C-alpha cells in the first residue's frame, strides 16, 4: 500500500511539483493551500507524513504544527517545508520532527521522506 503524504503550501506550483515527484516515487500525496482544517484533514486522510510550509494562510505553519503536536492522538511525523533561512532553529522551536529546505534537490527530498516513512 502506498504511503500517504499531506503537503501544505500556499504556492500551487510547489504543490503540483511535489505531487509529481512523489507519485514518481510511488507515494500518494494530498495537497492543501490552507492549513485551517489540519486536524480534520489528518483524520480524513490518515497520512504517514506531513510536509508543512510556514507562511501559509490562515494561522501559519508554526501554530498549525503546535496544534497537531498538542493532539496526543496524532502520531504522524510532521516536517517543516520552507525557504526560511532559519529553518533548523524553527524546527526545534515548534517541535517538528524534521525539515526539508526549499529549494531542494529531488534526491534529498526523497531521502528525507524515506527516512521517516521508509
Amino acid at each position: 500500500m502506498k504511503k500517504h503524504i499531506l503537503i501544505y503550501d500556499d504556492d500551487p506550483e510547489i504543490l503540483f511539483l511535489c505531487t509529481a515527484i512523489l507519485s514518481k516515487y510511488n507515494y500518494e500525496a494530498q495537497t492543501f493551500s490552507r492549513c485551517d482544517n489540519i486536524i480534520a484533514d489528518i483524520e480524513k486522510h490518515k497520512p504517514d507524513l506531513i510536509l508543512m510550509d510556514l507562511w501559509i494562510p490562515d494561522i501559519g505553519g508554526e501554530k498549525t504544527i503546535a496544534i497537531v503536536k498538542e493532539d496526543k492522538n496524532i502520531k504522524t511525523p510532521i516536517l517543516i517545508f520552507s525557504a526560511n533561512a532559519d529553518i533548523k532553529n524553527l524546527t526545534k522551536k515548534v517541535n517538528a520532527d524534521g525539515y526539508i529546505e526549499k529549494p531542494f534537490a529531488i534526491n534529498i527530498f526523497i531521502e528525507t521522506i524515506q527516512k521517516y516513512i521508509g
Partner: protein
Amino acid sequence: MVLTIRGFFFDEIPFFIKFILFFNMKNSAPQVVSSHEYPFLQGGGEMGALIRAKDWSNTPLGEPGTWPQSLCTMVSVMLDNPFGMYIAWGKEYTQIYNDGYRPILGTTKHPYALGISTRETFKEIWHIIESMFDGVMNGKPVGFPDFMLPLNRNNFVEDCYFDFSYSPIRKENGEVGGVLVTVIETTNKKRAEADLKESKDQLQFAIEAAELGTWDYNPLTNKFIGNNRLKDWFGLQHDAEIELPLALAVMAEKDRSRVEQAIQRALKYESGGLYNIEYSIINALTRQERIVSAKGRAWFGEDKKAYRFNGTLEDITDQAIARKKIEESEHRFRFILEHSLDPILILKGENMVLEIANEPLLKLWSVDKNALGKPFLEILPEMKEQGFFDMLQDVYFNDKIIKGNETPVTFIRPDGTKEIIYFNFTYQPYREENGKITGVLVIASNVTWQVEAKKQVEESEERFRSLANDMAAFVFTGDAETNVDFVNRQWLEFVGLKTEEGLGKAWVTVTHPDDVEHMSGTYEDAVSNQKPYEIEIRQLNTNGEYCWVLWKGIPRITKDGRFAGMIGVGIDITYRKKIEQALYDQQAETEKLQRLYEAVTANTPDLIYILDLDCRFTYANPALLAMWGKSWDEAIGKNLLENGYEPWHAAMHEREICEIVLTKKSIRGTVSFPHAELGKRIYDYIFAPVLNSEGNVEAIAGTTRDITDITTAEEDLLKSEQQMRAMVETAPFPIGVYIGREMIIQFANQSILNAWGKGNDVIGKSFKQILPELDNQDVFKQLDDVYTTGVPYHTKNQKIDLVIDGETKCFYFNYSFTPLTDSTGKVYGVMNTAADVTDLNLAKLAIQKSEENLRSTILQAPVAMCFFKGENFIVDLSNEKMFELWGKTANDVMHKPIFEGLPEAKDQGFEAILQGVYTTGTTFSADGVPITLPRNGGIELVYVNFVYEPYREANGIISGILAVAIDVTTQLTARKKIEEREQKFRLLADSMPQHIWTADTNGNLNYYNQSVYDYSGLTPQQIDTDGWIQIVHPDDREENIKAWIHSVNAGTDFHFEHRFRRYDGEYRWQLSRAVPQRDEEGNIQMWVGTSTDIQEIKQMDQQKDDFISIASHEMKTPLTTAKGYLELLQMQLSEENQTILLYASKANQALERLNGLVTELLDASKIQNGQLNYNISTFDFNAMLDETIENIQHTTKIHTIQKTGTAFHPVTGDKNRLQQVLINLLSNAIKYSPNADKVFIKVEEQPGKIQVSVQDFGIGLSGQHLDKIFNRYYRVQEHAIYFQGLGIGLYLSSNIIQRHDGTMWADSEPGKGSTFYFTIPIYSEQ
C-alpha cells in the same frame, strides 16, 4: 502615595489591611492554578514584574504554584496596594514586597531582598526587630509610630522614620505563616534627604570650624553615631560603630559613674532633656587624655520616652587645665593661708572688714574667729595712731603696694600690756577676677626674732667693746692681715691717741725703734702661723716715756676653724722690768739691794720671791706671804710643797728650775691656783736665773703677777663671740656673713646653707665661687654696692635661680645685705639675711599664667579670634587671622574701640549685635553674613561665619566679648558659582529635544530636563514620587533595572534600548546612554544620561528585516518550482537525448547559482544591518504616475487601468520607491480581481498633500485583516502571512509611504473589491 499625612493613617491602616485580607479570604474559594500563570501574581508595577520574573524554585518558598493559599492571597492584595507592604514568610522570613515598600530598601537592598531572608537584608537591625518578628509569629501584632531605623540602604547609614505595623498572616489552619509589615515612611524621602544633607553640610561646617565632636545616641538601639573627630578622640576607626558601653569605656574611670548618671537624668522626661557635663576621655589607642565638655539634649516622643539624644563634644583640655591651674593656685593660696606660720589676712571694703584671716594672724592679734566680719579698727584701735589704717586705705583707693621692712608694730594686749612686734609686710590690693579692687591682701612676716637677733649681735659686739674698754689691760684685735682693727680705751689713753689713729699699723709710731722690727717679725710670724705670741717691747706713753709693755696675743679661730686675726692683751711691765734690771745690775750689793728690793717689793701687788737650787724659798715678799697667809719664818727655808704648793705645781716649778740652772735663761709661765682670800686666780710668773760672778746659777728669782682680770677679759671676748655665733647659727632664717670685697664667706648658718644647697665647706670661699649661677642676676653687684657705699640693700620677692644638685631651680627671696662696719665705720663685710618666699610667689605666678593661657589661646587659635573689652568694645587682644579678616594691621585697631579702628564695619548692624551680647549675655552666632571690609586697598563684600560670646568674670559680670570668625567668602562664592553653573546647565538641558537626566552615585535619578516632562506628560512631583520606571514599558522594566544597577555598581557606561510611554500612551523606542562623571581621582561624582527617540530608526530596522525575510522567501518559492521541474525533466529524459539533458542540467546549475546568490545577497544585507537608503529628489509626480500606469497596462490584456485627476505639484521623495508602491498597488488590483476588467486610479490634491487611490473589483478583504495590515506590522512572522496573501509589495509599500510622512489605508469588502489609498505631503516652494 499619601506618605506625608501620617498619624491618621497609622491608626487606620492596620484595620484597612485586615479588612482587605478578610475580604479576600472570604472570596477566594480554592481554585486551580494553571502551571503556566499565577493569577495572584498579576498586577503590580515593577515589583509585579520582578516577582513574576523571579525563579522561586531556589527560595524556601518554592514555586508559586506550591505557595499556601493565605500567602497567595496576601501577595495578590499586596501587589495592587499603593501602601508599602512587605511579607516575611515562614521561619526563614522569606521576603516579598510591593512597589510602595520598595523605596525603603533604597538602592543597596533592592532588588536583592526579594526572595531572601529578612535576617540577611536587615542584618544591621536584626537584633532590634528579631524579637518583634518572633512575637508576631506567636500571634502578637505590634505597631510603632515614627519608629527610627538606622538603615544602610544607600551605602550609608541613615536614620529613617516609619510608621510600622507588624501583623501575623494566618494560614488556613490558623497557624501563623508569616509576618505582614505595613509601613509608611513618615518623611518625604527626597526632600528630607536634600534638607538634611544641606543642613548637615552647614552643621558639619560649623562643627568643623568649632572643632567639635558630634554624637547622636539612639536610646532604643543603644547605638551612637559620632563624627570622625569624635572617633579620633575615642581612638576608633572611622567606620566603627559606637555603642554606649564603648563610649563609657573611653571615659576616665573617675568620671564614668557621674556621666552615666547625667545621661540617665537627661533621658528622663522630667529633666527637660538637657545635658551638660565635663569629663575626661582617654583615647583607646594613644592613651591620650582629653577633657571634654559634652552638651546636648534628649528628644522625647509623646509617650515621654526619649527616642533620640544628641549633641556635641568640645575639647576643653586647655581651658580645663587653665581653670585647674587657677583652682590650684587658689587652692595653694588657701593652703598657704592655712598653713602659713606667717599671718595672712584679707580686709574688704573701705572699712577694712576682716574677711579672711589665718590662725597665726588670729593668734598674733589675740582674737578668735569672732573677729571675722569686724572692721579692722574695731579689732585693733591702736593701729590708727600708728598709721597702718591710712596705709591700708591708700592701698585700697590708690591701687598701691606698700611694703614694710622690720617695721615695729605695737599691740595693746587684752590685759593692757603693750607688745612690740616687728614685721616685714606687704599690703597689696585684693582684686576680684574682673580686676576690681575690693580689699587689701596683707601678708606679714613676724621678724621680731630676726630684729632682736640682729640687735643681739650688735649688742654683743657692743658688749665686747665696752668690756674691752673697761678692762684694766690694753686690748686689741687685729685682722688676718696684721692690721689692728680695734684697740681699747686704756691703750688709747696710754699712748694718747684717738680711736681712729690707734688702728692699722699705728702701733709702729709709738714703739721704740729698736723694737719695731722685733714686734713686726713676731706678730707677722704669729699671724701667718696662727699661733699665740708673747713679746715685751718698749712703747712711748703719753708722757713721752718708753714703757715696757708685755703683749700676749692669741689667734682668733672661728668655730669652723678659720683664722680671723689676733686678739691681744697688753700690760705695762715697765716697773717689773726695772726691778729685774736692778736685780741684775746690783748683784754685788745684794743686801743693800735686798733691802731696797724689800722696800720695793713690799709694796707691790706682784709676788716676788727667790728660790735656791733646792727649791727652797730664800725670799718672799709681803704680798706672797700675805697670799700664803704665812709669816716670814714660817715660809723661808721651806720648799714649795711645804709652802702649800700642790704636788703637780711644785713638780712643775722644780722642773723649770732645773731647766734654768742648765740654760741660764728665764722661764715664764702662767698658772692658776687658789688664792687664800680671793679664790682661784691666774698668775703670770717669771723665773729668772740669779748668776754668781762665775756666771753660774746661784739662785732663782721669781715674780708672779695676778693676771686673772686680763684673762677673764679674753675669755669674755671669746664667749661673746661664741654666743653671737650660736645665735646666728641657730637662726631659722638664712644668715651669712661675707668679708672683704671678695665676699669671703666667713659665716653661713644652716638655713642659708640649705637655701644654697651647699655644705659647710663654703666657709673661706668667695661668694662668687660657690654661687656662680648668680652672675647676671644682679646679686654680685648688689653686694658690691653695699660694700662700697655702706648702704644696706633690701629686696622683696626677688627671683633667684639657684643650681641645686646640678639642676637650676627658681626661688623667691626677701633678702637684705647689711654692711658690717668696724668701729671706725669702715665696711669690712656684709651680713646677708633672707627669707625664702618661693612658694608664695609661685602661687601668684600661677594665677598670672592662667590668664596668659587664655591670651595665648586667642593668639594661637587657628581661626580669627579677638577679645573686645568693655562696653566700648576695645580691641584688647586679637590674633593675626582676625587682623587679616578685618583687613587691618595691629596698629590700626589694637586698644581702640573696634568701630573706631575699623570704621568700615560701622552701620552694618554689628553694633547692635555686640551691644545685645554685652547686655543680655546671650551668645550670638550667624553664618554667611555679608559685610564690607577693606581688602586690597578697596572695600569688598565678604561673607563671614561668626560667633560673639560674652566673656564673664568669675563673679558673672560681663567684661567683654570674645569673637570668633571665619571668612567663608570663597566657599559662598564657589557655591553661588556652582548654582549659576547648574542653572546654566539646566537652561541648556531644558532647551534640548533629547531627554537628559542625571543620577547620583547610587544610581538615584535626581534631575530630568523639560523634555522628559513634556514627553511623558508627567509632573516633576509624579516622577519624584513614583520613579522614572513608570515611564518604561512594563516588558522592558526588569531588564532595564538590571542593566542600570549593573552599570552603577560596575561604573561602566550604561547603554540600553527601551520603550518610553509618551503622554498620549504610545510607547516609543529610546536609546538611553549614561556615562559616569568622574573627579580627578577617578571617583564617580554623578551620572549624566540621555535618552534619544529611536522609534524611526528602530522601525526602519524592523522594516528592513521584514523585507529581507519576505524577499528571501518569495524569491525562493519560484526557484524551488523551477528547480524541481528541471530535475523532473532530467529524470524523464532518456539517455538517448544527451543534448537536452545537458541543457536541463545547465539550467539547473544556473538555478542553483541563483539560489546561492539570493541567499548570499540577503545574508550580506542582514550583516550590513544598515538602513534602507532613500534617494530623495523633487520630481514630477503626475508624470511618474502616467509612466507607471503605462508600464503596468502592458502586462495585462484583461484589465484597463483608468486614471482620473492629476497632481499639479512636484513631490520630494524617492521616485523609484514611490513608483514601486504604485506598481504594487496596481499589480495587486489586477491580481486579485481576476474576474474584473477595470482598475481605477484616482489622483487628487488636498491641502498640503496628494492622495492616490487604487480601486479594484476583486475578492476584497475583511475589516479584521485591514487593521492588521496597517497598524501592527512589526510582528514580522505573524503579519507576513497576511502580506503573503496580498503580495509582498503591500507591506513594503505601506512602509515606504510612512517613510515619506504619508499614510496608507484601505477600504475593502469581501467579494466586492478593495480600494487602497495613500497620501504624500507636498512642500510649498518657499
